[in-house]
């Protein structure tokens, strides 16, 4: 019995490979215009950045076209290394917070009738359409020393002195989380919405309480959405500099700010480029993991 099953699996694998080849070539042809566009606007600038990162910096902040690994050595320098680690930590924190906040919210929306759900999604999108500088400024106003939050804390007797919120890590994280939350909710919503209710009913029918159903059925089946949310939140929060610039007041430094400064005021393009390459590598690694993971899923299903 079991050998027969193996035979069919082999056959399936072979025909799938053949399918793949048959499908790849026309797909590439169709992607022609897209590839040109991608090469022009994505690949070329990226290659240029990589190229610059291996050059040296001139005395006046110009790029001297001489091969050098200096920028990459600088990255290992403890100051930069610490910033990189801290940026990773903050991005990780933001991602986890967005997942913890976003999942229940996405779940709630997905279980509503479609008409209500689309309105709720709209609500999530509204902050998107407001100017981000305005949004960040409003956080500053809320949390400044004489702002409403401090006034309230003192009024309620929780603190006697105003607390310094602005230009601190926690406020930056708050800004990041609120900024990134929609990127977590949308992919989560779209996978949770596809989850068949009968699967949850079947689980309950077979004796699983709601908690067991969540961990054994809901969570594994919505994993693709979780992974998309991770990528969509983690990568931008690693590179974004507006939030830390505004809410951190330049005192709180992340990779994003440093890159911006290298290309701007400090004028060390090779170092900025090397940092950008680092971000690219992290992004690439995550996307690689994602495709590997989803391929594995596919294979197991077949």
């Amino acid at each position, binding site marked *: *019995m*079991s050998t027969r*099953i193996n035979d069919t699996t082999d056959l399936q694998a072979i025909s799938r490979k053949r399918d793949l080849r048959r499908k790849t070539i026309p797909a590439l042809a169709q992607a022609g215009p897209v590839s040109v566009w991608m090469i022009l606007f994505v690949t070329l600038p990226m290659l240029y950045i990589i190229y610059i990162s291996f050059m040296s910096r001139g005395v006046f902040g110009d790029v001297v076209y001489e091969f050098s690994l200096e920028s990459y050595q600088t990255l290992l320098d403890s100051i930069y290394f610490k910033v990189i680690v801290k940026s990773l930590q903050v991005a990780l924190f933001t991602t986890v917070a967005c997942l913890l906040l976003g999942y229940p919210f996405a779940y709630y929306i997905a279980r509503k009738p479609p008409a209500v759900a689309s309105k709720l999604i709209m609500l999530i999108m509204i902050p998107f359409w407001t100017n981000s500088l305005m949004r960040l400024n409003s956080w500053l106003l809320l949390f400044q020393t004489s702002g409403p939050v401090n006034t309230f804390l003192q009024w309620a007797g929780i603190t006697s002195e105003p607390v310094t919120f602005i230009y601190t890590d926690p406020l930056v994280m708050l800004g990041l989380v609120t900024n990134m939350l929609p990127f977590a909710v949308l992919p989560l919503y779209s996978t949770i919405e596809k989850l*068949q209710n*009968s*699967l949850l*009913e*079947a*689980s*309950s*029918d*077979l*004796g*699983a*309480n709601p908690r*067991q159903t969540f961990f*054994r*059925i809901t969570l*594994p*089946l919505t994993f693709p959405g979780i992974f998309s949310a991770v990528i969509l939140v983690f990568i931008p929060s690693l590179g974004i500099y507006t939030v830390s610039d505004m809410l951190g007041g330049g005192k709180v430094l992340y990779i994003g700010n440093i890159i911006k400064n290298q290309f701007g005021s400090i004028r060390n393009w090779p170092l900025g480029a090397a940092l950008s390459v680092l971000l690219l590598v992290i992004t690439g690694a995550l996307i690689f993991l994602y495709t590997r993971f989803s391929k594995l899923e596919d294979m*197991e*299903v*077949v």
Partner: protein
Amino acid sequence: MPESIVSLIDVEKRFGSNLVVRKMNMEIQEGEFLTLLGPSGCGKTTTLRMIAGFEDATSGIIKVQGERVENKEPYQRDVNTVFQNYALFPHMTVFQNVAYGLTIKKVPKDEIRRRVTEMLSLVQLAGYENRKPDALSGGQKQRVAIARALINNPKVLLLDEPLGALDLKLRKQMQIELKRLQKKLGITFVYVTHDQEEALTMSDRIAVMNGGVIEQLDTPREIYDRPKTRFVAGFIGESNIFDGVVRAVDGDLLRVECPAGMLTTRGQGFQVGEEMHVSIRPEYLEVGTGKFEGFELPAKVKDFTYMGTVVKTALDLSDGTEVKLSRFEQDARFREGDAVQIFWDPDKSVAIKKAQA
């Protein structure tokens, strides 16, 4: 009288203003194969879902093994369901799917392995343990769904059109297998279908539902031979139904006047002047010329249809309604357009009370 395993007492279900199940009363006996049969939208699925606990009854009492379950969640009820779309967990193998209930109950690993293996061979799926549901055919998925439910040794197994998605041949085969399984395990089956042949061949008892009401709950024989309502008579098998008024009662012989003429039937508990219905199966209908005792139903032969093993004859009555007669051979005495008289053995027809409006 044996203890009922499931009782529904005055159960009602309302979706908004839509009353989907009305004052339903039903006692399901331990070990029986009970089928809910009825047209689409009559509330079969809703009834089943209330027993399983997926739907709350708007009012009424539901008991499983004598214990009230209205406030129990599905996972606290000792019943299991086989879903129409199978609802297999796509991220789990066949083994993991079948083992699910036992894993939840934290049954020891080697016992799980033993029982899953046993269950899979019972549904003839040994060797398929490591497949994912996507790699199974419809019939195989159905077996996994059944195994996954049965492994929990439920008191009652609820099946909602479990064979609805299968082709005819596979369906016949699965009908036999399901019946065999039910007999072997002695588990109570509550089975939903709108295929009356399936209901008649598999069930110990059938509840014929219409518009949220059980019209009749009886053995297949009784349902077929002694329909209690006009709906049941028309829904199960083919029937010729006459609406009429009782004109004379002679013991249990009733003389009935209907728009097409006069007829005679047996029936008890009817009074002169009462409106009622008479149902006669096509195989019992007789045709002749001349006068027949107790009958006066002139008709005209309309056409003959060959249906493989039987010949159906359609006849028009004087009020324009059509009756059908079926025989193994065509009656050589008549041809299309002939004027004839219709009659039958009054023992063969069923007198049906008119439903209270």
